[in-house]
């Protein structure tokens, strides 16, 4: 029933997701002079979500660069800087806009390591944010992690808590391969415990956000808190759901997901992105391939509707999984 903690050996503060990200940037920029930031309105303005606030003053205009609205070229410049000794962090305001830079992400950043037989690495972080907010409509609300998940050569990270956001961003900055770091616009103001001490969260290690025995809910990004809310409703009805957050989609912590499902024998994968061609489908295929004999029920996917996101708030809500959808799916699966 308890959320995983157990790391509170030193001081712990409760801070916002956006402030945890800011701390990660500040600490890594102070630690390593090759780390620098590029993006739209990130310097003076401190970013649309205030993630880069204060960094211009601390590190100066050549470490925190405002760019024109030229996603393809400033992302490409990130690749060019990365292959020549820098550790750039490129901020793409909305993941929807990353589509303007797909050549640079997919054809350039993701390929160099192969071409150079590992001699040339691309230590680039593309920080961006996705998901529905409130009424931002079809071009500012997408969950596009599957596009990047599909491309060999890219690492894909989707933190759901302030603690994970900080530790994983620090790991992303230190990583020698291109990382697509997808934050969620609804999480920036969420709060959670973050250690005082310097820590880095290892890639490829998922986290059990709630332990349970009856069913495993696999979710990432903003679907993690949504699943946690659903577990309270389920608990009231006697169902103990475990919530597992892979945190990184690439590399994926298969062992953790599989061990949880092996224990509960039931799996529901909850994804904000549209159902078709999503990461959930791939995880479902892994689970059924590895645990077919163990499963008590078919792997269930709760995902977004296969539609562009509409503007109206009520219409928006029916497009992405809500707490009630998760509860209903679990109960349907367990026949209760």
């Amino acid at each position, binding site marked *: 029933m308890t959320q995983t903690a157990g790391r509170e050996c030193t001081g712990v503060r409760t801070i916002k997701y956006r402030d945890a990200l800011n701390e990660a940037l500040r600490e890594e920029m102070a630690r390593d002079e*090759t780390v*620098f930031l590029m993006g739209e309105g990130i310097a003076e303005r401190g970013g649309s979500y205030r993630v880069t606030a204060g960094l211009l003053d601390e590190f100066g205009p*050549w*470490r925190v*660069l405002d*760019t*024109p609205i*030229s996603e*393809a*070229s*400033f*992302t*490409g*410049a*990130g*690749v*060019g*800087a*990365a*292959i*020549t*000794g*820098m550790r*750039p962090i490129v901020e793409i305001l909305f993941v929807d806009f990353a589509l303007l830079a797909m*050549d*640079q992400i997919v*054809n*350039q950043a993701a*390929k*160099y390591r*192969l*071409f*150079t*037989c*590992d*001699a*040339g690495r691309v230590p680039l972080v593309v920080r961006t944010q996705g998901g529905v907010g409130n009424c931002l409509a079809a071009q500012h609300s997408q969950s596009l992690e599957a596009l990047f998940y599909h491309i*060999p050569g890219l*690492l894909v990270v989707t933190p759901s808590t302030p603690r994970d956001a900080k530790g994983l961003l620090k790991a992303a900055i230190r990583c020698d391969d291109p990382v697509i770091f997808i934050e969620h616009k609804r999480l920036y103001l969420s709060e959670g415990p973050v250690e005082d001490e310097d820590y880095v969260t290892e*890639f*490829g290690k998922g986290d059990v956000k709630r332990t349970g025995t009856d069913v495993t809910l696999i979710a990432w990004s903003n679907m993690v808190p949504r699943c946690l809310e659903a577990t309270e409703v389920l608990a009231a009805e006697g169902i103990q759901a475990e919530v597992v957050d892979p945190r990184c989609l*690439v*590399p*994926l912590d298969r062992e953790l997901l599989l061990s949880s499902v092996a224990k509960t024998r039931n799996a529901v994968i909850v994804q904000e992105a549209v159902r078709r061609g999503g990461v959930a489908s791939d995880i479902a295929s892994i689970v059924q391939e590895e645990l077919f004999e163990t499963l008590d029920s078919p792997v269930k996917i709760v995902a977004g509707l296969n539609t562009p996101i509409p503007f109206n708030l009520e219409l928006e809500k029916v497009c992405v999984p809500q707490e009630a959808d998760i509860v209903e799916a679990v109960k349907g699966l367990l026949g209760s």
Partner: protein
Amino acid sequence: MGMKKNVDWVKLFRTMYSIRVFEKRCIKLYRQGQILGYFHPYLGEEAIAAGVCSVLEEGDYVVSTHRGHGHCIAHHGDLKRMLAELLGKASGYCGGRGGSMHIADFSRGNLGANGIVGGGLPLAVGAALGAKIRGEDRVAAVFFSDGAANNGVFCESLNLAAIWDLGVLFVLENNQYAVSSPIEAMTRNPELHMRGTAYGVDSARVDGNDVSAVLDAAARGVAACREGKGPVLIEAMTYRQTGHHVNDPGKYMPKEKVAHYRSRDPIDICAKYLIDLGNVTPEQVASIKSEVDAQVDEAVEFALGAPAPSPDEFIQCVGARA
């Protein structure tokens, strides 16, 4: 034109002639079925790579294109490793994983050929930006074509380099065709250097078949970049001596135009400079040529005898990754 007394004409000629002979031998190997995939010849454009790279210094960067053999040879390229790569061999620059369109050697500042037209432009901006942040005066020379000049990243990259005063030398190799489409049909104003001017970037058009003209413009451009007065754009006018790739006969290229540019073959023009200004005899030119011929023979022999990459090793290597 005042810089010619310092020019190493022998080295320039050797570079240009190496590119020519290397590619002619490769095209033979291609027709014999030894080289597979795409092969975009640089024949007829050699003066641009040789002229530009001759004024770069150790530590400078080059960003190349799908038509990139010339740039690679002119910027520290090793003929043996290049040929081995074109043959897909383990001892090639990319261990057989890249091929003609992807040769890169980060250790020598060659940031790679590129299979995406225009794809390299922002990479050069980033390389120059990194150098600026580190307080170094390295220059990034990026080669691209008239075709790439019609891609959005060209304007974006030019603008980024301009707002940050970066040391990027934009080398627009205007061979007048985007694959098969003539530049006059692809833009209303084929004076492409004017696009640089429009972005506030020092820009000039030069005869790309005349290595001396290229060299002068490049020397000025690189000097400006190194002084923090970049970027600079050079539009080098040239023409392909072949179609877009080896299997393209280039029937859309008017015979008179082909003949005109062949009569202004950059290798011949350079040979004349070599004799007139480099104080080299025609006999010495012939002996330089046979030396290069022998080097290319040696590279062919090396590459044909080089081991193939192991599929098992490859699977092991990439399989271990996320």
